[in-house]
């Protein structure tokens, strides 16, 4: 019967010969090769070419006019007198606002739903499916749906709000053409759309928590809230970090909801940074400037993700 390396090590037999045969092994590299090819084509190449574009005044329609401008595209973003300054930082600020609105909602609501649907609720599978269902829709579908719900003339929200007199004399706000009402409309649409995904991840993690812990806690006389804060939350922490991280990234990628629902208005008040980059690159045909914006945004995103990770890691060690 063949012995494992560990067993051979323990008995001291023929380990040296095994080690010499393991000098270099191509097999693992062959396994990652298929992914590596796509990675190189769709990530590696665009990354490098984007970096090159960002140092040019670049327009792919008039290649004869492309000129090297060094770091000009980057300094423009930090020069208050440039054309790009206001537009870029306004849109980045908007994306930040959207993150502040949407990330807490997209973590807390799915968490509560997951805890609720992890109990022995009758028909819980149906509820899980219902809550997850919107996630399969495309952004244009959900945006159009919520556009009609929020629109001022006969929109569902306003009809009910008026009938119930919720907003008093002035009537409901213009959900799609004034701030901050527009952010509420966009956030509600986004939360409804994507909360099912976060819920499923959290639900899977919840199901991994051993039942014995709760049993032990019950014997010790812990109530439901104590069990949630002392058992559920600590054991969910690493999954929560992951959920928060991907939710931040998804929120950073806001694009379609504001384009469809508010047309980025009023007065670019809901224009996200991803739209700004798109507009710069494909409507203005300034791909160099757009690439520079992309790298600045990427750096900010990496920083935010890193900080998020660090903060939660620190708390993790306290247990």
């Amino acid at each position, binding site marked *: 019967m063949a012995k494992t390396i560990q067993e051979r090590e323990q008995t001291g037999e023929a380990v040296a010969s095994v080690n010499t045969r393991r000098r270099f092994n191509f097999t693992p590299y062959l396994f990652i090769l298929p*992914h590596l090819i796509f990675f190189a084509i*769709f*990530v590696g190449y*665009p*990354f490098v070419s984007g970096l090159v574009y960002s140092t040019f*005044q670049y*327009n792919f*329609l*008039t290649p004869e*006019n492309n000129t090297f401008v060094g770091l000009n595209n980057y300094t423009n973003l930090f020069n208050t007198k440039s*054309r790009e300054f206001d537009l870029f930082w306004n849109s980045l600020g908007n994306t930040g606002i959207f993150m502040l609105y949407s990330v807490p909602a997209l973590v807390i609501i799915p968490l509560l739903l997951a805890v609720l649907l992890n109990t022995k609720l009758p028909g819980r599978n149906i509820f899980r499916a219902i809550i997850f269902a919107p996630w399969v829709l495309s*952004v*244009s579908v959900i945006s159009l749906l919520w556009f009609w719900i929020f*629109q*001022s003339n*006969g929109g569902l929200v306003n009809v009910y709000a008026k009938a119930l007199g919720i907003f008093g004399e002035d009537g409901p706000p*213009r959900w799609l*053409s*004034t701030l901050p009402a527009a952010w509420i409309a966009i956030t509600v649409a986004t939360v409804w759309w994507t909360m099912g*995904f976060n819920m499923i991840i959290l639900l*899977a993690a919840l199901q*991994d928590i*051993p039942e014995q812990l709760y049993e032990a806690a019950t014997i010790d006389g812990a109530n439901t809230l104590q069990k949630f804060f002392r058992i559920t939350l600590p*054991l969910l*922490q*690493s999954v929560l*970090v*992951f959920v928060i*991280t*991907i939710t931040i*990234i998804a929120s950073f*990628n806001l*694009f*379609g*909801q504001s*384009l*469809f629902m*508010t*047309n980025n*208005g*009023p*007065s*670019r008040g809901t224009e996200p940074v991803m739209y700004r*980059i*798109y507009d710069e690159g*494909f*409507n*203005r*045909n*300034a791909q160099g400037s*757009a690439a520079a*914006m*992309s*790298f600045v945004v*990427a750096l900010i*995103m*990496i920083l935010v*993700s*890193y900080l998020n*990770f660090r903060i939660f890691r620190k708390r993790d060690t306290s247990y």
Partner: protein
Amino acid sequence: MIKGDYKKSRIGRFSSLTLVALFVAGLLAACGDNTAAPTTGATTATTAAAVATTAAAGATSAAATTAATGATSAAATTAAGATSAAATTAAGATSAAATTAAGATSAAATTAASGTATTAAASGTGATLTLPANCSNVQLQYWNGFTGPDGPFMGQLVDAFNKANSGKITVKMTSQADYDTQLTTAAASDTLPDIIIVNEDVVASFAFNNIIRPIDPIVQQLGYTASDFPKIAWDNGMVAGKRYTLPLSMVPMTMYYNNDLLKAAGISAAPATDADFQKAAAAMTKGGNHGFEITSGFPVQQIFQQLLHQFGGSEFNADVTQATWNSDAGVKAMQWMLDAQKKYAEPALEVDADLNAFKAGSAGMIWNGIWQTTNVTGSAVSFDGKATATPQIGPQPGTWAGMASLGLPVHKKGNDACKDAAAGMLMKYIVDNSLTWAKAGNVPAYNKVRNSADIAALHPQAELAKAVENPIFPPSVPGIGDAFGPLSDAVTALMTGKATDVKKALDDAAAKSNQTLAANKAKYGDAPKS
């Protein structure tokens, strides 16, 4: 014991997962942004269970491939609200106008087409363009953005042309959504078709970006001169002293009014002057009805431009280096809009709210594009909805309009003389027979057709035939759409109450626009390089 083991394995695994996610995050950001930012690159591409590692492969490819299309199609669909409404607005919109006529058209159009073949021959003032002798079986690709009900009207013209030239020329028409982006990508890969529709606001941008080429000799051969078109429409095709496009049709700002409400208010005719307009709007504003509805998005920038010109102003100075909408005329125009909104309309309405209110029967008058005709008049509404020209508010005539023109694309590998001749013949055929096209809800640019008795029988084209003699178009300089951005923002800010100082808002917008004009000038130079 259980807890210890559990924590070790779970937390270890999930923190490594988190690390992977973090890495994916950075890369996604980097590559996704380059290719135009996926809406939710990360979320949409990931599949529910397999979390982090598959996200790398799935999401990145999605970012690369779907990002561009997702984003741009999005842009196209909402163009009605956008400032650069051009292609899609006109297309989707003009199309809307077609439905009423749709039933009767196939018969009408074919007769019109064959009937006007004689007109075409007769109308040529100069030498007519014919196919060179060595050309046979020319295949012509014709692209446009007419994806709505207007497409079939253009299709009828193309079919009739193919019939008249059977065996010699075959035109294949392709109508596509997201039209400008299609042209841009085709230009990048040198696969542009042989003849295209160009909208009024992108003529110069297309010329400077190597999408269309000068067609002076062809237009000369076809025999068209400045006197055949409204001056502003004819000049729109000129970029840096060369002709790039030939005007086909216009879609002007139109006033829609609820004739039942108007009559109930004791007024018998649609207002045509400011005084009459105020009177009618005031009379109809009562009991939950609004005499005039105006939004804070599309088309308020266009209404502002129209009033600016009527009060004697202009958006830019003569050499298009300075924005001049902050003039006295601009302040007057903006003040007029704010007053009208305050007196007659609901505040801070979003895009299309004017149309919805009008269709619900609670709005007396609205101003929107001619393409809304079938949406808000006739059998589409339960009252007597009518369309006519917008009243002239200021002392000068002027009507905002969009325009579709015909142009010939650039082919880097060289142009085919046979195809150019065939494209010229098609151009002439479409322009001379634009009566058929007018039935789709367009006002022909060609004077001879526009002033014909046939147009007088089409409504509201007949009422608007006069309005398009003084259309308001953006200047033909590259990137001009971008220079309108700050104006659109300022008008919206004022209409929503976000800004209250009219002069200051217009001044700030002009200053921002001047930066864009200077940047565009530096980027594009004075004339197309090729």
